[in-house]
């Protein structure tokens, strides 16, 4: 029960933040792919850097244990293909699974349309699963992280990712200021 109360609370905060950023608005999200509106990248990169640094420094200060966190497993091919297909869908609908809920919650019927499509897509995969299962389970690499892949220490990987992400944000800021 506790588990679910936390789930609900985290969800509320999650949805609130997404809506505040304007990510429930399809033209805004799609605008990212026309380099008109960089909200998606700004929010995603800021959030990722914050959480990544939080996990790293939380670990160093003994407040949480990064080693106990669940790292999503890497499946090279399915995630590559999945990403391509997902990106296509994203640009068509202007929403992603989480933001489709935000869109619906702020009264946009497009959100419902995307959610319907999502259910249909997942059902399709589920029912076709016996056929695609070999592909689905191909190229597994377990919970592979950048540091395990490159052999770099955790701290160095964090530094590199921070530098790349902040550079991207700086580039975006410069581009927007030039308008």
């Amino acid at each position, binding site marked *: 029960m506790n*588990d679910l109360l936390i789930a609900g609370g985290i969800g509320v905060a999650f949805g609130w933040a997404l809506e505040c950023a304007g990510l429930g608005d399809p033209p805004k999200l799609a605008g990212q792919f026309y380099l008109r509106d960089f909200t998606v990248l700004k929010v995603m990169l800021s959030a990722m850097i914050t959480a990544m640094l939080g996990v790293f420094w939380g670990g*160093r200060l003994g407040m949480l244990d990064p080693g106990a*966190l669940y790292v999503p497993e890497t499946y090279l091919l399915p995630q590559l293909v999945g990403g391509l297909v997902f990106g296509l869908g994203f640009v068509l609908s202007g929403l992603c699974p989480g933001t489709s809920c935000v869109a619906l919650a702020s009264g946009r019927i497009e959100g419902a349309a995307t959610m319907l499509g999502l259910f249909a897509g997942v059902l399709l995969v589920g029912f076709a699963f016996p056929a695609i299962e070999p592909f689905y389970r191909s190229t597994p690499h377990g919970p592979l992280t950048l540091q395990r892949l490159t052999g770099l220490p955790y701290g160095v990987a964090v530094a590199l990712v921070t*530098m790349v992400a902040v550079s991207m944000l700086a580039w975006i800021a410069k581009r927007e200021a030039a308008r």
Partner: protein
Amino acid sequence: MRLVRGLGIGALALGLVAPFAGSPSRTQQRGLDLDSIARAIDEGSDHVSARQLAKWIRDRRPGLRVIDVRSPSEFHDDAIPTAENVPIDQLAKSRFAPDQTIVLYSQEGAHAGQAWVMLRSLGVTQAVFVPGGLADWREEVLSPLLPANASPMERARIAELSHYFGGSPRIGGEQEGEVAGAAQTGQRSRRRGC
């Protein structure tokens, strides 16, 4: 934007200092703590059943590391899914983070048990081993005997576990010694696709 610039600088600072912050997983060199080792053996907290390991793998227990201590050629022949191959002579040089759950196994369990003591003497207390090794895995997980006197739900669960790893249960009348191994410590794992 002053705020944004501040955030950017803060992030950059925290990020660039990160490599110099030292490592959290320092294996402490302690001596052979015979008392605690004997206690662990006595209590049974030194090992887990193959079935318990199977559940941990299926439920993607956070921080789980399955270590095969046999030679690389044996490992290539057949191994437990998600296992890493760290032959026993390289075990001492490996590093283990404090909150990982290390599960050691070998062919029949003897070498894994010895590896457990070795790691224990190096201060690695978060390891356990599978007493019956790969043989137990095949016997208990891949082709388990569904006990006739267990509840249908229990039999379904054992069968489900077996199927998950690509095995198939045997239906028989013999009573199985052990059912649903040690209690699961740590948080309840949630079914996630994320």
